[in-house]
C-alpha cells in the first residue's frame, strides 16, 4: 500500500462534516466562494449541452478554451503562451497542481516550499516520491518568503521552488523585487519553478500581483497554475490550467492523458464563456471581498487576535497562541460551542499549531454573526485563562 497517513486534508474534511450537521453553522473554513456561478456562464453550459454535448476533447483541452486562456494569461499575467503546445486544461487547479508536481518532481527530488502553504503540494510531492524542504515565514513580515532563506536551502537534490502568491493560507503576496530575486535563485541553480496564481485577481490595498513567468529568465523553467474556481465562483465545475514552455508541457500533457484523459466538455464550454464573456461579475465579487476582509480584520482587532496582514487571496491566517490552546482544540471548541468553522493551522503544518485560517467567503451579515460568536468563545477562553483553566 502506498504511504498513507492522516493528512491535514483529511482532518479538514471531518471538521466540514461536523459543521454540515449544524443548521446555523457559519463556515469560515473552506475556500469555496459563497456566490453561485454567474448566470451567463450557466446559460453557456446549457447551450453547450444542446449544441456540443457529444464533442470530443483532446486531453489538453478544447482549442477554443486554450486560446481564451492564452489571451487571459497574456492580458493579466503579461506572458504569451502558444495555445497549441504550451497550455493544458485540467480538472480544476487541483489537478493542475498534481500534474505540475508529477512533471517536475521524481523520487528523491526536493522542492523548496515557503511554509505555511497549501497542503496538497505536500500530498502530491509524497505521491511523486519527492520531499518538501520548508522555509519558514513569519506573521511579523506578513509571511514573506525571504529570498536569502530560500537560497540557503538549495542543495544538489533541489529540483524546484514552489511559489504560491497570493498564498493559501498565509495570504501573503510576493513583491516584484522578491519575485525577481527568487527567480534569480532558480536561474543560478537551474531549478524549476512551480507558480500557483489561482488568487491572482485578489490583491488588496496597494499590493500588486507579479507572475513568476514574467520575470527575466523564468519562462523556460516555470509551470504556472490557474483556475476558474475562485475568480468566477466555479469550484464545482473543475476547470483549471497549466501554462509553461513546450518541453515541460509535452510531459505534462502525457501525464494528463495517463491520469484522467480529457476534461469534461460541458465544463470546458462554460470555461470559454467565463473567460470571453462579461467580466463585471468577477469585479463585483472582488469588490465584495475587499469589504468583507475589512470587516473580519476589524473584528479580529477587537478580539485582540494578531495576524499577518492579508495582502491577497481569500484567507486570513491568525495567531491564537496567546490562548495557550492548540489550534485544533481552539477550532474544535469554536465549532462545537459556537458552530463556527475555522481551520486549524495544524492542518497546514505541525509548525503552525497556534494559527487558525479564516475565509471571508460568506455574506457579510453571516460573517458578522460568525465573528460575534467567535467573540463570545474568546471571552469564555479569556475568562478561563484568567482563572487558569483554559483548555
Amino acid at each position, binding site marked *: 500500500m502506498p504511504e498513507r497517513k492522516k493528512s491535514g486534508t483529511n482532518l479538514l474534511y471531518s471538521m466540514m462534516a461536523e459543521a454540515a450537521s449544524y443548521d446555523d453553522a457559519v463556515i469560515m473554513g473552506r475556500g469555496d466562494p459563497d456566490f453561485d456561478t454567474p448566470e451567463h456562464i*450557466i446559460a453557456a453550459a446549457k447551450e453547450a449541452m444542446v449544441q456540443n454535448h457529444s464533442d470530443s476533447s483532446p486531453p489538453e483541452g478544447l482549442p477554443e478554451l486554450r486560446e481564451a486562456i492564452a489571451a487571459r494569461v497574456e492580458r493579466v499575467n503579461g506572458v504569451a503562451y502558444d495555445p497549441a503546445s504550451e497550455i493544458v486544461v485540467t*480538472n480544476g487547479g487541483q489537478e493542475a497542481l498534481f500534474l505540475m508536481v508529477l512533471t517536475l518532481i521524481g523520487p528523491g527530488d526536493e522542492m523548496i516550499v515557503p511554509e505555511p502553504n497549501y497542503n496538497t503540494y505536500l500530498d502530491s510531492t509524497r505521491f511523486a516520491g519527492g520531499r518538501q524542504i520548508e522555509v519558514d515565514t513569519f506573521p511579523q513580515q506578513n509571511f514573506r518568503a525571504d529570498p536569502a532563506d530560500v537560497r540557503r536551502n538549495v542543495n544538489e537534490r533541489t529540483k524546484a521552488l514552489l511559489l504560491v502568491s497570493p498564498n493559501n493560507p498565509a495570504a501573503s503576496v510576493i513583491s516584484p523585487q522578491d519575485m525577481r530575486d527568487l527567480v534569480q535563485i532558480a536561474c543560478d541553480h537551474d531549478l524549476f519553478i512551480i507558480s500557483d496564481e489561482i488568487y491572482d485577481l485578489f490583491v488588496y490595498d496597494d499590493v500588486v500581483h507579479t507572475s513568476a513567468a514574467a520575470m527575466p529568465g523564468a519562462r523556460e523553467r516555470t509551470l504556472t497554475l490557474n483556475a476558474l474556481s475562485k475568480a468566477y465562483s466555479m469550484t464545482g465545475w473543475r476547470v483549471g490550467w497549466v501554462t509553461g514552455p513546450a*518541453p515541460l508541457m509535452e510531459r505534462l500533457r502525457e501525464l494528463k492523458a*495517463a491520469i484522467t484523459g480529457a476534461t469534461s466538455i460541458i465544463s470546458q464550454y462554460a470555461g470559454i464563456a467565463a473567460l470571453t464573456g462579461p467580466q463585471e461579475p468577477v469585479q463585483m465579487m472582488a469588490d465584495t471581498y475587499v469589504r468583507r476582509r475589512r470587516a473580519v480584520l476589524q473584528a479580529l482587532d477587537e478580539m485582540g487576535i494578531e495576524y499577518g496582514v492579508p495582502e491577497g487571496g481569500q484567507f486570513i491566517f491568525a495567531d491564537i497562541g496567546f490562548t495557550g490552546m492548540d489550534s485544533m482544540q481552539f477550532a474544535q471548541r469554536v465549532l462545537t460551542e459556537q458552530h463556527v468553522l475555522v481551520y486549524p493551522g495544524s492542518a497546514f503544518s505541525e509548525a503552525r499549531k497556534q494559527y487558525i485560517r479564516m475565509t471571508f467567503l460568506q455574506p457579510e451579515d453571516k460573517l458578522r454573526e460568525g465573528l460575534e460568536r467567535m467573540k463570545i468563545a474568546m471571552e469564555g477562553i479569556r475568562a478561563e485563562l484568567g482563572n487558569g483553566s483554559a483548555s
Partner: protein
Amino acid sequence: MPSDSVAALLQRHRANEDLNAAVISAAARNALDLAADAVVGPLDERIIEATGAALDAGHTHYEPVPGIDELRAALAQHLSEATGAGWDAANLLVTAGMQESRFLTLQLIDAGDGATALPQVLHPGVRKALGTRPRETVSLAVDAERRLPRLQAIRAALEGGSRLLYMESPSRLTGATLDADEMAAIATLLADHDASAIIDRGLAPWVAGAVAAPTERVALIGEAFPGAGIASWLAGYIAVPEDWLPPIQSQKQIMAICTATPAQFGALEAGNLYTEEQPPRLEHMQALRSSLQDRARAAGLDALAGGAASVLALRLSASQKAQGLTRLAEASYQVADGSDFGAPDLLRLTVCDAAQAALDLLADA
C-alpha cells in the same frame, strides 16, 4: 518519470518536435471517428433539463470528494442488480471518467509485495495509468478468439506471488466477456491466494444478459450509465469494499477535490432514465452489430464473435491490415488499432452506421 534538468529537457523536446508536427497534422484532418468503444448517441432533453436545473439551484460549488450521494446510490443499485452483489453507496466513488477510474484503482489498491497481473491485451490507458508511478507487472496470456486472460495464466500469476489482477470483461478491444463459470473460478483463485482484482466492466451495458463479476475482493470500474449521449461529459465510477475506499478517496481529493457537477448531475439523470432507455438502445445496437458482422463475413473479413454490441473487432493479416489502415486514413476514417492494445492482428470499429462504409473499404483492401 525520469527527472531531467532544464537543459536536458529542452534537448529531448527538440528531438520530438517533428513527431509532434506529424501528430498535429493528422489530428487536424476532419476524420470520421470509428475509434471509440461506443458511439455517442443523441442526448435526451430530460438530461439537459435536469442538469440545467441543478446548476440553477446552485450546484456550482465543490461537491463531496466521493461524489454526490444520489449518484453513488444509483450506481450502487445498478451494480447490485447487474452483478448480484450487495453494493451500497458507501462503496462507490464517482470519477472524472474511465481513465481516472483506471489510475486510482491501479495506483491505490494494495498489490502487496507482488506484481500486478495484466492480460496481454488491454486498453492502452491501463499501461499509461500504471506508467505514471510504475509498479511491477506480470503478463497474462490471452485466448485467441476473445483476447481474454486464460485461467491457467491467472492461476500461475497468483501462485507466482501476484496479489492484484486487472481485467476487462467485456474486453475493451473485442467486446467478449468471461462467463459465469470462469468468473466463479477466478473468484475462488482470488480467495485461495488472498488476492484482489480490478475489473473494468465499462462495456457491460452493451451486452445482452448478465455480465458476471466476483462479489468479493473486487473493484469494479466503468463509465457511469453510458449510452445516454454524455460520454464526453466524463463521469465514471469505482466500486470497492468499504475499507479499500479511504486511500482512493484521499488520492481523489489530492488530484481533483471532486468530479465536475454538470457531469455528475447529467449522469444522475442518465441513471434515472437507464432502465427505460437502455434496453431499446441495446437492441438497436445489437441489430446493427449483427448486420455489420454479416456484411464483414460476406466480404471475407474475419469478424470476431465478441459480445458487447458497441464494438466490432476484425482479425487481419499483416498486409491486409496495413493496406486497410492506409485506405481508411485516405478516406479520413479513424479506427482503433489492436496494436495499441497488444493485439497487432486486430482492428476495432465503433458499431454505428458509418462503420458500413469503413468495412467496405477494408473488404477491398
